[in-house]
């Protein structure tokens, strides 16, 4: 057998079979889809035809039997049932196995498939029997043949295997003849088949040739190229890029050079060539998905769950190497969703969900990246369980765990050696955990984020680069070494002169920040992060170079000692011995032959405080409010917290300012207290400050929360200012809510809640605690309803949700009472503005605090929302800001109530 023909046959068959699995599964769902059926039929038919042509009898027999079934399905004589589909899939598997053997040995593997063929044939007979029997025998046959021709022609205008109808006609015409004797119809087609081969083969050979002719027009437009050829081409282009860079470097600064013009031309051609070669490697992401419908179908049968896989954006293109790298992680995650995420139908029913679990895959381009979302509406992840397990496994201590946010706890799932499934199932198995997924994604410079709401589902968001091969990078120097920073993440470069560095770089505690236009940019000395010594950037007489990089929603400034040019670099993977370092995403060779590391800014940001981890849920307010000047002013109390640092607190949260004579301060156990209005007021210093015992009297700020009060000992009360309070940076330090710009200075805002809780540790268990706040959340997005609910419930609120303003109106009209309402603005039927107006128009609801929580831009909509009756305008979604706002509003409403009562 001609080897080349065989290779061609294998390549074509694999390509077709890749598509086949998903098509057959899709067919099961929409049995009436004639086009799909025709396509499936065609694939099998082509395989069968080619088998006959090159003499692969075993493969041909299986394909033929499968084709018979599909032909009958297409003709409507056999119903597309799950059972029938299962048998067809079985046949496809056998075909695959045979092809694999063929590929490995060059010969058709031995094996007996008569059972499967008998099964297929039996199915075919069953269909033939009842359907044909009542029909007038001679009539349907020609008709069938005609429809077939039409179908095939209609769906393949180019490679129309028109002659296909020729073998089909006699075949289709044969069975009806013995039809009246239905019970013994079975052996007859089989016999006719046995007798047919020489003719059939001949006909199909003709057909193949004919197809070959017809296909020429397609072949003119596309050719099959071995992937290795493309890969080596890509490598060569990589080398060319490096050489080009070298030449550019040599010619730089010498405009007179006679080489200048040709080098410029070479530069342009190289760039075009590079783009062109990259394009040849782009493939739709659907190629990585094609196996998933089959996988999900198999999982349904194994687990007994009912699953629905929805895939959108399959046409999104990305580099072949990236595609290869994400195939397994994607499969793993879909399997995880199906196995661990989606509950059994009984559980789903009992929870009021539809019995069929939904798994959604969605891919799209965003910037130079591809985003893939994998969502399921299953049980979600139990954060407490994760926490327990992590402690059990010794991944962290209980104390650490208690300090972690929900998002941080969720991220534990990605730690090596973590698996949350209570039972090891045969489907997901053990060993391959989410850590493997994360490693695989990160190896190609991607990131994984996980969001989950218990009881409602899990969303995984993967962000991967379009291509790995060649990127544009900024070359910088720090600590005497050069590094590359991917240009994609670089927002801008800032250079500060030596005179300016002391005034422009400010400090919050030990964090250096830089005021870049209207936002606070945390600064990181790159050489310190890299543990390199003696960088020039430390020298006060040197200018400061800041590379502003984007990490998720956040920005960060990297201080480097020198910024060189941008270069096109060929990314090579980080060696296995270095891959655990976490701050490198690759290595590369520069134009001058030097090997340098490519920095992973996301990794650096994570090290500098894990800020990038939950960026998806962070508010965008900080980024957007710079262009908005609207907004109410807040009175802030400024005080000296010791260590010469100024802090602020919204005046509305301050109950009183006192000066306590030192002699009145008493010690009770390990706490300081003062007798105050017939009660004991606990006193606390500002966290991290030591307090100054020589202060007499001691200035104290009294905070109250419900029935509880405490006094914060400060060094000095400084001022009260009216300022628009915008928390620009969340803080991870206890006792600090975040940082805002007050009076032109970066100032920490005190988290009063923290101190009140600390002073009254039993606050949560206190029986005197005011009854839980009842909060109504109105949002048409299930995701946000869940998100907000989780955030508020964790703060001890009782949350009711409404999926539309209309539903909310109903509840309120029925007499339900709420302490506060959080509403979305953009909703169908009745929007948030109308809802606010309605609320304010009724005397009994006009004083309920109302918070607008929206993804609309602040600049255009805040004023309108406030005018409509909202008390606050918040952007989706910052949980902490929401809860403090709610605290504040409820507190005000309560005190207002108190006054009027």
């Amino acid at each position, binding site marked *: 057998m001609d080897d080349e023909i065989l290779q061609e046959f294998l390549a074509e068959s694999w390509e077709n079979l890749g598509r086949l699995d998903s098509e057959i599964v899709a067919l099961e769902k929409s049995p009436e889809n004639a086009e799909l059926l025709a396509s499936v039929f065609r694939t099998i038919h082509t395989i069968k035809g080619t088998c006959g042509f090159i003499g692969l009898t075993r493969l041909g027999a299986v394909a033929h039997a499968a084709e018979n079934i599909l032909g009958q399905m297409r003709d409507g004589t056999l119903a597309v049932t799950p059972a029938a589909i299962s048998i067809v899939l079985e046949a496809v598997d056998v075909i695959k196995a045979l092809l694999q053997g063929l590929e490995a040995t060059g010969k058709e593997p031995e094996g007996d498939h008569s059972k499967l063929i008998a099964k297929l044939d039996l199915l075919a007979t069953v269909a033939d029997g009842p359907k044909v029997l009542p029909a007038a025998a001679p009539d349907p046959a020609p008709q069938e043949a005609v429809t077939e021709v039409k179908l095939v022609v209609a769906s393949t205008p180019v490679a129309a295997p028109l002659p296909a109808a020729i073998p089909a006609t006699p075949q289709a015409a044969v069975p009806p003849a013995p039809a009246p004797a239905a019970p013994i119809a079975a052996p007859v087609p089989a016999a006719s088949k046995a007798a047919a081969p020489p003719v059939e083969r001949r006909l199909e050979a003709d057909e193949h040739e004919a197809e070959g002719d017809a296909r020429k027009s397609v072949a003119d437009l596309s050719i099959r190229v071995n992937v290795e050829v493309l890969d080596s081409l890509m490598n060569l282009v990589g080398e060319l890029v490096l050489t080009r860079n070298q030449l550019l470097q040599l010619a730089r600064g010498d405009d007179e050079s006679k080489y200048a013009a040709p080098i410029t031309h070479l530069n342009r051609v190289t760039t075009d060539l590079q783009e062109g070669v990259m394009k040849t490697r782009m493939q739709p992401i659907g190629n990585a998905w094609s196996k998933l419908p089959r996988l999900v179908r198999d999982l349904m049968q194994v687990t007994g769950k009912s699953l629905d896989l929805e895939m959108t954006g399959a046409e999104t293109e990305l580099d072949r190497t990236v595609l290869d790298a994400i195939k397994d992680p994607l499969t793993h995650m879909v399997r995880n969703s199906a196995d661990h995420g989606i509950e059994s139908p009984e559980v789903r029913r009992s929870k009021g969900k539809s019995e069929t679990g939904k798994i959604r895959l969605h891919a799209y381009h965003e910037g130079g990246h591809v985003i893939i979302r994998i969502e399921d509406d299953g049980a979600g992840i139990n954060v407490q369980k994760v926490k327990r397990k992590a402690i059990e496994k010794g991944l962290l201590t209980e104390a650490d765990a208690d300090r972690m946010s929900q998002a941080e706890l969720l991220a534990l799932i990605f730690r090596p050696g973590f698996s949350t499934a209570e039972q090891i199932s045969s489907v997901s198995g053990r060993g391959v955990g989410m850590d493997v997924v994360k490693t695989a994604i990160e190896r190609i410079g991607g990131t994984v984020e996980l969001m989950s709401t218990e009881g409602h589902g899990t969303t995984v968001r993967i962000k991967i680069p379009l291509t790995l091969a060649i990127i544009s990078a900024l070359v910088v120097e720090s600590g005497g070494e050069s590094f590359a920073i991917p240009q994609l993440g670089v927002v801008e470069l800032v250079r500060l002169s030596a005179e300016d560095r002391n005034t422009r770089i400010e400090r919050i505690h030990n964090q250096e920040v830089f005021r870049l236009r209207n936002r606070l940019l945390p600064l990181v000395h790159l050489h310190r992060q890299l543990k390199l010594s003696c960088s020039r950037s430390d020298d006060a007489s040197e200018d400061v170079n800041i590379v502003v990089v984007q990490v998720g929603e956040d920005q960060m400034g990297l201080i480097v000692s020198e910024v060189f040019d941008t270069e096109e670099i060929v990314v090579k993977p980080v060696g*296995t011995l*270095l891959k655990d370092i976490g701050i490198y995403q690759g290595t590369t*060779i520069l134009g001058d032959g030097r090997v340098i590391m490519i920095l992973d800014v996301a990794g650096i940001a994570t090290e500098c405080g894990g800020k990038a981890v939950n960026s998806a849920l962070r508010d965008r307010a900080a980024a957007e409010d710079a262009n908005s000047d609207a907004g109410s002013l807040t009175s802030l109390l400024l005080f000296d917290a010791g260590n010469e640092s100024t802090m602020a607190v919204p005046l509305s949260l301050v109950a009183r300012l006192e000066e306590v004579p030192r002699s009145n301060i008493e010690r009770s156990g390990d706490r300081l207290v003062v007798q105050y209005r017939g009660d004991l007021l606990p006193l606390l210093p500002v966290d991290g400050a030591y307090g100054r015992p020589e202060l007499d009297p001691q200035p104290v700020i009294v905070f109250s929360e419900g029935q509880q009060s405490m006094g914060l000992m400060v060094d000095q009360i400084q001022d009260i200012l009216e300022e628009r309070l915008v928390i620009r940076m969340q803080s991870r330090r206890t006792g600090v809510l975040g940082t805002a710009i007050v009076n032109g200075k970066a100032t920490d805002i005190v988290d009063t809640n923290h101190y009140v809780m600390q002073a009254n540790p039993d606050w949560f268990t206190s029986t005197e605690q005011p009854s839980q706040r009842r909060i109504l959340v109105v949002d048409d997005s299930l995701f946000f309803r869940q998100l907000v609910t989780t955030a508020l419930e964790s703060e001890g609120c009782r949350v009711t949700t409404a999926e539309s303003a209309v539903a909310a109106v109903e509840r309120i009209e029925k007499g339900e009472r709420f302490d506060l309402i959080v509403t979305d603005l953009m909703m169908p039927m009745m929007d948030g503005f109308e809802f606010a107006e309605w609320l304010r128009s009724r005397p009994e609801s006009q004083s309920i605090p109302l918070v607008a929580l929206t993804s609309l831009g602040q600049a255009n909509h805040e004023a309108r929302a406030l005018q409509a009756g909202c008390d606050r305008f918040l952007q989706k979604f910052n949980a902490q800001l929401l809860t403090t706002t709610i605290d504040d509003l409820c507190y005000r409403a309560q005190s207002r109530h108190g006054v009027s009562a």
Partner: protein
Amino acid sequence: MSRAATLEASPLRDGMSHQLDYENQYVSFRLGTQWLGVPVNVVQEVLNPQSIRRVPRAPSEVAGLLNLRGQIVTAVDLRQRLGLPEYNDERGSMNVVVRHGQESFSLLVDDVGDVINVSGQKLEPVPNSLDAQWKAVTKGVFRLEKRLFVILNVPAVLKFG
């Protein structure tokens, strides 16, 4: 090259090399006075001292990266890996480049000797009392006529951190 001359005269010439007998052939190299070897079929090539870029925050056993005709090779400081003092010689370390997995690694050694054929000899286990750091990375030892020849387990050498 003068170093080649010293190698020529190395005391390890007692094993005669036979071509195509890769099973029994080992590339020999020296750390201090100790002669060590790795199977010849994992060795890609042997290089003179190279310019090696260090990698900040890399494990101390990783000396850095080197550019081998466009291929990036991780250099492992074998002295550091085996707990020996630093090599201070102006001539610099030689590179024994080995393949492991899909990657190339360069083992930095003081000196490279011949390819030694040990056919007919028995690989004996290293003594139990050997330093744990060594025991973990050695396969065994050949008693050559004049020297002991310790065979390294390459995958184990490249597994640390």
